[in-house]
């Protein structure tokens, strides 16, 4: 390295100007980097775009060789996903076509494929199960997690670090490892394939997330607020729900959303602990492949139904995204 004596004191001054002011050359580098980032983003989003396209392709367009980029959008995928249909032939088909004007949108799409809609498909039930279980488990895990997080944040809990590790550790195990005994336990208790059973499993599964995340958020609320409230005659509990809970509202909202997404997306537990009554959408979409002809457009439509809520959440929660995924370890 060049020593100070050699170059004299004037050199560092010019060098420091280089740090503060951006030369044109550096500005060009900046633009190149920005363009590179955008290219990376586009490449990463291609599969998502393909999925969106596939959801609106007709059956024959999906399997066209080479794959089509320009195509006539249809609602076939959505109709296949949401309805049970039967094939019409001969006279029945003619008759149905004659009355096509009275039909609703879905029925007309089905008719274009020579089919009649008999009723809603199982998928709607799966979706409903997903919603019930996701909200139930999220409510339970956020409530329990909020209390526990407050306890860990504000008080000296003996062995707090070990307990927090214990809480987190459950999350790190592969689902299949814990599911074998839970499966047997559930069979004994009659919780197998029930909403309650799934809500319980996901509550436990998400507690690690909610406790860790909420603890981080509560840690950021100055203790002085509560202390002032206590001096004003509030009880600890009152101070908790009148001061801390409103202050932590953003954090609670972010935690709720992450918990919802985790349950919404979860597959392994649902695969192993449900069969019919409480089966959620992810394993249902996955088994759609197995049955008869692969209806890719239906799968893509199902994926789309899954993607939209997640997209909304990502944009609403983008400031907390990293924090949510790392259990509060990283504050963006």
């Amino acid at each position, binding site marked *: 390295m060049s020593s100070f004596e050699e170059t004299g004191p004037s050199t560092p001054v010019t060098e420091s100007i280089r740090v503060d002011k951006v030369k044109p050359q550096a500005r060009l580098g900046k633009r190149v980097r920005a363009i590179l980032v955008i290219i990376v983003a586009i490449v990463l*989003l291609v599969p998502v775009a393909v999925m969106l396209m596939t959801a609106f392709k007709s059956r024959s367009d999906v399997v066209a060789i080479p794959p089509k980029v320009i195509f006539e959008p249809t609602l076939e995928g959505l109709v296949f996903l949401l309805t049970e249909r039967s094939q019409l032939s001969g006279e029945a088909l003619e008759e149905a076509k004659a009355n096509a004007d009275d039909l609703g949108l879905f029925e007309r799409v089905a008719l274009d494929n020579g089919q009649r809609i008999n009723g809603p498909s199982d998928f709607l039930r799966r979706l409903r199960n997903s919603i019930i279980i996701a909200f139930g488990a999220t409510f339970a895990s956020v409530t329990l997690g909020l209390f526990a997080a407050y306890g860990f944040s504000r008080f000296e809990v003996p062995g707090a670090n070990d307990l927090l590790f214990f809480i*987190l550790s459950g999350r790190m195990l592969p689902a299949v490892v814990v599911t074998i005994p839970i499966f047997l336990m559930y069979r004994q208790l009659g919780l197998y394939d029930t909403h309650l059973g799934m809500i319980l499993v996901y509550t436990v599964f998400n507690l690690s997330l909610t406790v860790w995340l909420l603890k981080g958020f509560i840690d950021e609320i100055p203790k002085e607020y509560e202390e002032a409230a206590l001096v004003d005659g509030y009880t600890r509990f009152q101070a908790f729900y009148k001061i801390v809970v409103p202050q932590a509202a953003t954090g609670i909202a972010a935690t709720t959303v992450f918990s919802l997404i985790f349950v919404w*997306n979860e597959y392994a537990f649902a695969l192993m602990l449900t069969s019919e009554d409480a089966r959620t959408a992810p394993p249902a979409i996955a088994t759609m492949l197995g049955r008869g002809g692969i209806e890719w457009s239906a799968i893509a439509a199902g994926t789309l139904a899954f*993607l939209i809520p997640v997209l909304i959440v990502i944009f609403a929660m983008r400031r907390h995204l*990293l924090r949510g995924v790392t259990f509060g370890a990283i504050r963006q």
Partner: protein
Amino acid sequence: MATPSIDSMGAPAPQVAVQEKKHRTLSDRGLVNLFIWPTLIILIAFNVFPLLYSLFLSFTDYSAIIVAAPEWVGFENFGRVLASEKLWESFSITGRYVFLSVGLELVLGFGLALLLREQFRGSGFVTTLILIPMMLSPVIVGLFWKLMYNPSFGYLNYLIGFSNPATAPDWLASRWAGEPMPGLALWAVVIVDAWMWTPFMALLIYSGLKAIPDYLYEAAVIDRASSWFQFRRITLPQVMPLLLIAVLFRTIEAFSKSFDLIMGMTGGGPAGQTEVLPIRIYQQAFLGQFQTGRSSAFAYMVLILVIAISSLYIRSLNKAKEG
């Protein structure tokens, strides 16, 4: 639970305050217990108890579909699992999968993080966009990529320039132009994992980069340090703690979440080439003969491995928080 007699505090003379405080901490203890124990109890009921139960089962010949009561067989299950060649194969597949995906994510993520360091108009929007893959359900992502990889009507081969299906790779079947090419399916899965998680890695590293104080670089510039020197002696050591967290976190996640993704894409095939440990356990425990006892033994070995990695992770997490 409630703290009594705070109303009587009037103007708190110092001594009174001390007394009150003592009183309050005592009832606080009760409150803490009330707040923390419900969580702990439910975790014990659903994590600790099942694990103890499966520890017991791992020493028995129990099968979930046979009515017979579990019979004690000692270490036989463990012996059999360890002796099975497929176990070691599965271990090595899992190892390769985790190593390749985390490694790829680390290298690509670091590059992307360095790019992200330059803020530009709309960079926040772009960073949010690239996080979409990671928030999707892994099994659905897997299904979806199955379509992308399809040798005849999938997009991927066309996008990378193979327009003739006959000479193109059939990724998920581990075949290239009709010839078997072992390992291709594993790479296919690794690529999807990297697709999902590279942005995450990049963002973590980026938040580490942002935290590096400018004066370090200014000092380096004054000393006329080369940019390679700056990278090696300032950037790298400064982001190291976060890098470690990111790598360990992804290692654990790749390990446990591989199940969803691979089930969606290949189900462990072709011919077991992507059969990572969780899938193997699943097949033993829930398909075919339901070998509950043996799969419990198997699961326990995996459990110990995961706990070892997790405790490393937690330790580095705590260190990063202190530092």
